[in-house]
């Protein structure tokens, strides 16, 4: 083994703090065996934007589902088997040629986990949280999503119990595509509202 005989990298101060809290809680019997690995595995492999992409593709392919999704996001998303913490009260906001929606959480990092997974670092960092409610048109352009001046922008600050999902516009030229193929077109950023397809 090439690693044999190497010393592991020294822990950074924050890593030492994590290890300290983990050790103390473990000694008090508060950390169930395998719990940390299980939580990590779940968020790394089961929950992510592929779930949201399936919801969007179904809405594009099935007008009845789209109606139900816009009327009661939580129930319609549950039809596809998705739900749980940070997804108990879902509202889906639809992009149209005239209206663009984008989601943010200025106070912390609220995000619809069951359909998008854990939020990306930039969504949780101060620049996005500070700027999206104040200068969304400029920030969207900066992030690679310039919008025509006549497109209305609706920003949704997730400050209470509702979590939002943006329903992006179906791209032109996709009329013949099957649902699974459509889902492959849907990006995480389009469901946050910082990209158009």
């Amino acid at each position: 083994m090439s690693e044999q005989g190497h010393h592991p990298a020294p822990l950074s101060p924050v890593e030492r703090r994590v290890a300290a809290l983990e050790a103390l809680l473990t000694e008090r019997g508060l950390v169930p065996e395998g719990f940390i690995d299980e939580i990590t595995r779940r968020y790394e492999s089961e929950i992510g934007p592929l779930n949201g992409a399936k919801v969007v593709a179904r809405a594009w392919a099935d007008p009845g589902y789209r109606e139900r999704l816009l009327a009661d996001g939580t129930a319609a998303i549950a039809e596809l088997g998705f739900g749980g913490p940070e997804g108990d009260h879902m509202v889906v906001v639809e992009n149209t040629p005239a209206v663009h929606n984008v989601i943010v959480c200025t106070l912390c990092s609220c995000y619809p986990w069951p359909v998008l997974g854990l939020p990306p670092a930039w969504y949780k960092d101060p620049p996005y949280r500070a700027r999206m409610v104040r200068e969304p048109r400029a920030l969207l352009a900066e992030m690679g999503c310039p919008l025509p001046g006549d497109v209305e922008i609706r920003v949704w600050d997730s400050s209470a119990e509702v979590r939002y999902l943006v329903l992006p516009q179906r791209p032109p030229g996709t009329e013949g595509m099957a649902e699974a193929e459509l889902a492959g077109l849907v990006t995480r950023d389009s469901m946050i509202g910082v990209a158009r397809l």
Partner: protein
Amino acid sequence: MDGIHDLGGRQGFGAVDHSPAEPAFPGRWQATARALMQIVAGAVEASGGEFRHAIERMDPGHYLTSSYYEHWLTGAATLAVEHGLVTHAELEARAGGRFPLSGPALAPGVADAGPGVGAPRFAAGDRVRVRDWHPPGHTRCPGYVRGKAGTVVRLDGTYSLPDVEAHGTARRHEPTYSVRFAAADLWHDGQHGVSVHVDLWDSYLEPA
């Protein structure tokens, strides 16, 4: 509290460090920090409000210069110390150095939250104004909408008021609303054709 976490509309921040995709956790310690917060919050039966407030009470300089999962670690350790699971001295001894915790809550716990609010006071289309006040404890009313007028666009369910639940075992339930604000009503440089929607509890609002 008018804490550093209340970032909406603050100026001077630069570009968003945007990446189109990334792993769920950048490394092992971040995943562990996340799991530890879940463990501590469960062990001390912390409400969502108490969990968030434990992070909001971080020293502002520390908050702005540390990553998201360091916030979770600091919040988890703070709750663990405040609820007697561990001591600050034990944490520092085990970490072999400083272990900064969040500051104390500025607001006392509420013993009696009073009766909840049953029927919503407002309906979709109503004009409302956000109370212009500065509660010393936890709140989910962002600073940038205080004193501002907007329009109710949606009634959501009745939920536990974070301002109360963050500070003890008392609970008060109130209707919540999504309120639309024209950007021009929020900012002197508010952009044309922009609206910002904020989800607010009943007691944050008064008729406009």
